[in-house]
């Protein structure tokens, strides 16, 4: 177990072994996303209440799920880099932050596009919308600190601390926003509950979720490998690779 951990923590080992994953992930995300888009946008039935705009959900729901879990993954990587000082974990934090921020933005944008025909407005101060917006600001904070502090190792540690504190605060933020919404306003809008979605709808949705995850790991891996080479440019293994 520890040996495995140490091996994969070494940039050289990681770089050489992870290369094989790229075509697998690329193929998987391409096929699954393509299939999900085809199934969701062309074949799946329109909702009897929401009409054709329900199809936005096939992008929105996966993005929203991925937004939250990518923050969790970033914070776990940050914790690992703080405790064990693994270089690769720090690089992982740095490379996942922009992807996570974009996904969160995508969830917000598709949500408001869906909200216009459904709720008649692009934005309501609903509990879920508000906590997603705050999640975006948390990502932005990690990115901003990282950019401000430059490339040094201490910069990475400061950003990692911020990411971990953010993860610990997420439940507090979420609950306080829930209380603010539920006790303060009468329930004006709720995400329409569809009791027992038919398979023709949750099938493509599940496919899109899996496809989003595959694409996310692909993008993360490519960025991470690029970042590792950049950081280790003076080391022997990168020099050797350049010569070949």
């Amino acid at each position, binding site marked *: 177990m520890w040996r495995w951990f140490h091996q994969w923590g070494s940039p050289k080992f990681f770089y050489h072994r992870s290369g094989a994953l790229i075509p697998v992930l690329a193929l998987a995300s391409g096929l699954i996303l393509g299939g999900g888009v085809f199934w969701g946008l062309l074949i799946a039935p329109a909702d009897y209440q929401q009409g054709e705009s329900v199809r936005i959900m096939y992008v929105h729901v996966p993005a929203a799920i991925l937004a939250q879990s990518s923050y969790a993954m970033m914070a776990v990587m940050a914790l690992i880099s703080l405790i064990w000082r693994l270089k690769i974990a720090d690089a992982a934090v740095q490379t996942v932050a922009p992807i996570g921020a974009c996904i969160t933005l995508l969830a917000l944008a598709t949500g408001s596009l869906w909200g216009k025909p459904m709720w008649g407005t692009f934005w309501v101060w609903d509990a879920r919308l508000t906590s997603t917006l705050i999640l975006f600001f948390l990502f932005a904070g990690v990115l901003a600190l990282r950019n401000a502090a430059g490339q040094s190792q201490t910069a990475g540690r400061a950003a990692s601390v911020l990411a971990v504190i953010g993860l610990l605060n997420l439940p507090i933020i979420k*609950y306080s926003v829930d209380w603010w919404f539920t006790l303060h306003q009468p329930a004006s809008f709720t995400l329409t509950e569809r009791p027992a979605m038919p398979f023709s709808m949750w099938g493509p949705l599940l496919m899109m979720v899996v496809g989003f995850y595959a694409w996310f790991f692909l993008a993360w891996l490519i960025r991470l490998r690029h970042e590792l080479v950049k950081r280790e440019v003076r080391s022997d293994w990168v020099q050797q690779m350049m010569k070949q």
Partner: protein
Amino acid sequence: MMLLRRELKIMLRSPAGAIQSLMFAVLVIALFPLAITPDPSQLEPLGVGLIWVVTLLACLLAADKSLLSDYADGSLEQMVLSDYPLWWVCLVKSIAHWVSCGLPLLLMAPLLAAMLAMPSERVVWLMASLILGSPILSLFCTLGAMLTVGLNQSSALLPILIAPFLVPTLILGTQWATTGGEAFYGYMLAALLCLSLVTLPFAMAVVAKIAVSR
């Protein structure tokens, strides 16, 4: 205690920082009637929220004042190297921030409330919510100052980092005051204060070590 006395002395001998925070708050509150309406019946429901937001902004603005000079003249490094426990140093920094910023704003709140035509029973709950809430603001602001000190960045970085963390405090504080002291919000705000008080000094200690190693 020596540390605390030092901070308070520095503050008393140059009260400009505290006065500037107060001026900022009064000025911004004065802008709202000008921009929205001077009608008391329309200003009154906005009062609690406006005063809370102004307090929050004033705290963020004043966050890195004392830490910047300590960082520049090397006393921050000496504090980290000294045999005081580092969490205590960080807690003292937060207390100093609260005394120079949170406390004056708290005392000023009745005046700000009068400017916004707030009824006096609401003012009592506003003060109560600020008493519990402003120490949390100070703790987080000091954390932000520790994170950004020595980065030579624009002053907008700190609010971007810290404002999302202040959302729960803002929500619970304003809700407590506007609902006229509904116990649930008060308990939650108190719980948040206790939680911040026992966890944030240790988080700040980690960050302070990073800050002096830059």
